[in-house]
């Protein structure tokens, strides 16, 4: 995407808030939602718009887990590692995803199809271990089920694996 466009769009997003430092998180969250990550140029625009030093913007961005500075894959896999999921073997899912997609948490596949994240409790402890791909939940996962789910995304569709 061309830089001036990102700047333009960022400004549009930011302008929905008053130029006060306290809206830093809110603006960043909206931009994150738009691009699935925070482009560097956006941070600069936000810094200027809200009159918050870029260093601080960067500090805030790296502090909160909600923000990412690197572009995400087409499909974002969020494996829950809440306590309930953890004691029910969420780490086995991570191992399996690594085996299938070859990525570690925080990474994106070379083809840009998947990104893997480990998230804290997503409030679906009853379905532990659980993961989300984009907005869809997959609960009580076993490595076998997981493999099937991933395959379905690979083919571009999705499968009801519940």
């Amino acid at each position, binding site marked *: 995407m061309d830089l001036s466009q990102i700047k333009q769009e960022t400004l549009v997003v930011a302008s929905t808030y008053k130029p006060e430092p306290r809206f830093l998180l809110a603006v960043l969250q909206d931009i994150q939602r738009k691009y699935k990550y925070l482009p560097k140029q956006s*941070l600069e625009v936000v810094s200027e718009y809200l009159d918050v*030093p*870029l*260093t*601080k*913007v*960067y*500090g805030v961005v*790296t*502090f909160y887990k909600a923000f990412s500075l690197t572009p995400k894959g087409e499909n974002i896999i969020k494996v829950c590692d809440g306590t309930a999921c953890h004691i029910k073997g969420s780490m086995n899912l991570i191992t399996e995803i690594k085996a299938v997609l070859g990525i570690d948490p925080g990474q994106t596949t070379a083809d840009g199809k998947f990104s893997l994240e480990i998230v804290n409790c997503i409030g679906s402890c009853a379905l532990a271990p659980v993961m989300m791909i984009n907005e869809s939940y997959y609960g009580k996962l076993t490595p076998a089920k997981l493999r099937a789910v991933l395959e379905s995304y690979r083919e571009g569709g999705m499968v009801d694996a519940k």
Partner: protein
Amino acid sequence: MEIIIDGKKVEAQYGETILEAAKRNDVYIPTLCHSEALPGLATCRLCMVEIVENGVTKRVASCSYPIQSEIEVVTDNEKLRRIRKTLLKLYYTMAPNSEMIRKLMEQQDVREFNRCKVDTENKCTLCGLCVKACETMGTNAIYTVFRGAAKKVGTPFDEPSEPCIGCGACASVCPTNAIEYLEENGTRAIWGKTFKMVQCKACGKYFATEEEIAYLYQKLGDDIDIKKCETCRKKANANRFIAAIKAEGF
């Protein structure tokens, strides 16, 4: 108001910190992150003391705990010593080669702690003084980035920070001398940014960064003249006396 420090009654002012009261009364409490210029960080936790307030015994960081009632303070006992010692073991793993840490370890009788990974390259204890100094300068060139175990002090994207003027206040306030600062051949380098320095118009000595000078002009207005190093400015000043004396016939 009157408080008790280590069994001794001392005068304290409402709202001042325990550390301030102790210092004024010559009671030593070890500190690392404390600076009167940049108070209130309370990150190093070496200044923990035990207090009894309203009948409750608790241990607090003396540098930030305000005196609001007639408390009783103990600055050294078995428990506090244990806290400091354990804490210093952790400091050792972070910055084993820092002179300050070594000094504190010696003072608190702490030996080298090698059970865990010891970062021999590091000197930073993330006390936060540098960031606060930079913030105080109004430059905001550095900030803490990331959090938890990954936290560090840095610049956006680890790139040279645009607002940095190279004043080195960060390095100056650093208690463990963790911030590298190199001046050579007319440049000053800090935080990955290399500054061109301004040469003294008279003697040619490099005396400040261009950014520092710009900062000063911004603060003081254009009336001020900063073209020479302090020695040559002093000389110029002396010259004015000399000219006056000459004018008066020696």
